């Protein structure tokens, strides 16, 4: 399949999934008790409420409302937040950089840990390093992230006074990079832990499988050192699937970010979503659902393209 054809097909698939998501959110709003008028702020006067209901077209037939919902979405118009009294779409987008900072650093840390450790474990399956890391990753995957965050706050903030318990900056120290970094340590560690464990398991099995390939004994016979074999002949094959695995981690990463942000009072999109859900700020809840779904679809699309670019075998099929 040609590159352009592949891109077009994947793009079409992504758009179909996104369309299913927006249709599902539309259906959810109409099935909810009270129906879609929940999108109009109950605090408003009856006249203002009526105006919003008219703009949403709530008196119109269902198919027309369905089209209006998508038309508004395309324009980025997702209604107004009740809690902040701002456009919901913009309120969500404003919080995205804070979440990206947290999630990006966590992903980078996870990769920096998972790749060397996974190689270490996979080079000798069943060896001591493999067993220890197997147990450690099982424990990490069983650990409730929000509780791990709370325990870290108890230890590092309440007992030892080493690190701040939450927030992004200390009031008065907004310009200090050191202060910002200190605020990042605990949330990044909490978010990175389960992802490190998950990626480690994939790297380990990838390395173990690649080590069994027939070209590895051949390289050894050629007189290459174990380090050279790992770097040139094992790692390349073992790390390719990691690109796809990172895509699979994306929904877990954003969900984990919401929990981590709540525990550490981090002003990101996830905490905004949790607060909006608790405060029944439906326009913001809907805006976040659609934004997050679109972001995950986009990330998977980009990773697919990346995969195709770095692995020439994929295009041949």
């Amino acid at each position, binding site marked *: 399949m040609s590159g352009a054809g592949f891109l077009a097909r994947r793009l079409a*698939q992504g758009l179909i*999934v996104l369309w*299913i*998501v927006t249709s599902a*959110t539309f259906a*959810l*709003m109409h*099935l*909810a*008790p009270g129906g879609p008028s*929940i999108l109009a702020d109950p605090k408003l006067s009856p006249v203002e409420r009526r105006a919003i209901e008219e703009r949403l077209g709530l008196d119109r037939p269902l198919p027309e409302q369905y089209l209006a919902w998508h038309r508004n979405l395309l324009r980025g118009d997702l209604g107004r937040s009740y809690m902040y009294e701002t456009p919901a779409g913009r309120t969500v987008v404003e919080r995205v950089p804070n979440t990206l900072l947290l999630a990006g650093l966590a992903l980078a840390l996870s990769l920096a840990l998972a790749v060397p450790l996974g190689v270490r474990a996979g080079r000798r399956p069943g060896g001591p390093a493999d067993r220890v890391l197997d147990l450690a990753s*099982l*424990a990490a*995957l*069983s*650990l*409730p*992230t*929000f*509780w*791990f965050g*709370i*325990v870290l*706050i*108890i230890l590092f903030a*309440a*007992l030892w006074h080493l690190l701040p*318990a939450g927030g992004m900056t200390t009031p008065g120290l907004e310009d200090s990079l050191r202060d910002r970094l200190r605020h990042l340590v605990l949330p990044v560690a909490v978010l990175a832990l389960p992802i490190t464990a998950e990626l480690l398991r994939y790297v380990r099995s990838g390395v173990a499988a690649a080590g069994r390939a027939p070209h590895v004994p051949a390289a050894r016979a050629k007189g290459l050192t174990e380090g050279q074999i790992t770097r040139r002949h094992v790692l390349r094959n073992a790390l390719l699937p990691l690109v796809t695995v990172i*895509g*699979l981690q*994306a*929904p877990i990463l*954003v*969900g984990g970010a*919401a*929990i981590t942000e*709540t525990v550490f009072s981090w002003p990101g999109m996830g905490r905004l*979503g*949790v607060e*909006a*859900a*608790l405060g*029944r700020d*439906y326009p913001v*809840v*809907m805006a*976040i*659902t659609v934004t*997050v*779904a679109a972001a*995950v*679809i986009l990330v*998977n699309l980009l990773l697919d393209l990346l995969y195709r670019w770095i692995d020439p075998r994929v295009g041949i099929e």
Partner: protein
Amino acid sequence: MKRLAALAPAALLATLLLFSWAGPLVRRTDPDTLDLRLGTGVASAAHPLGTDESGRDVLARLMVGGRVSLAVGTLATAVALVLGTLVGGVAGWRAGWVDGVLMRATDAAMAVPVLFVALAVLSLFGSRLPLLIGIIGATSWMGPARLVRAEVSTLRQAEFVVAARALGRAGPGIFLRHLLPQLIPLLSVAASVGVAYAILTESALSFLGLGVQPPRASWGNMLTGAQASLYTAPLLAVWPGVMILLTTLACNSLGQALRRRHAP
């Protein structure tokens, strides 16, 4: 060694079940009664783990909270396994375009950010236990579906299946009589790992305030309350987390031991 690997987590799970289900029958302290004579988190003879921020007995709440968490985890996993077996079974059995459509749908469902969908649905419809169970189940059937599909698409070529077909048995009959028993090892692995995942999701949602609603105790929502006294009574935030960790650790290691037994 192999036997021990499966027995230890199974024994731990049995202990946790006993603690949660039989515990309240033996130790009859009411989990909702307020006793404000003690400070938050101070232990006494009547309250070995102290009382929480509202003056309720922590040990009693850990027990009944365990009932909720274990029940939600188990039932949600049952929903996920039924859905997964159905989707994966049909996809693997029918093959062709049905398989294509179902598996693309499974891929798409895996890209859905579960936590945000759960937040939206639970806030729109209000949090009730059946809805919580349904939503956790409905967002975790994809793993089992893939496993079942892979197994069924190999098994459908097997001689005993071809023979059953030749005898004129219908598809669903063959599936139930001949294929389902073959899938049990696979499903038991998926079940134990699934319960761990479901309990983690339930406790996270309850912690955020959208899962099990107070005053009903769950390990997750006990942590929400404990957050207020992290500096004065940190142990209150330790116990519920330890319970969750023990449960998920037991389920995950049981799953791993079962997997190794079937595919050494």
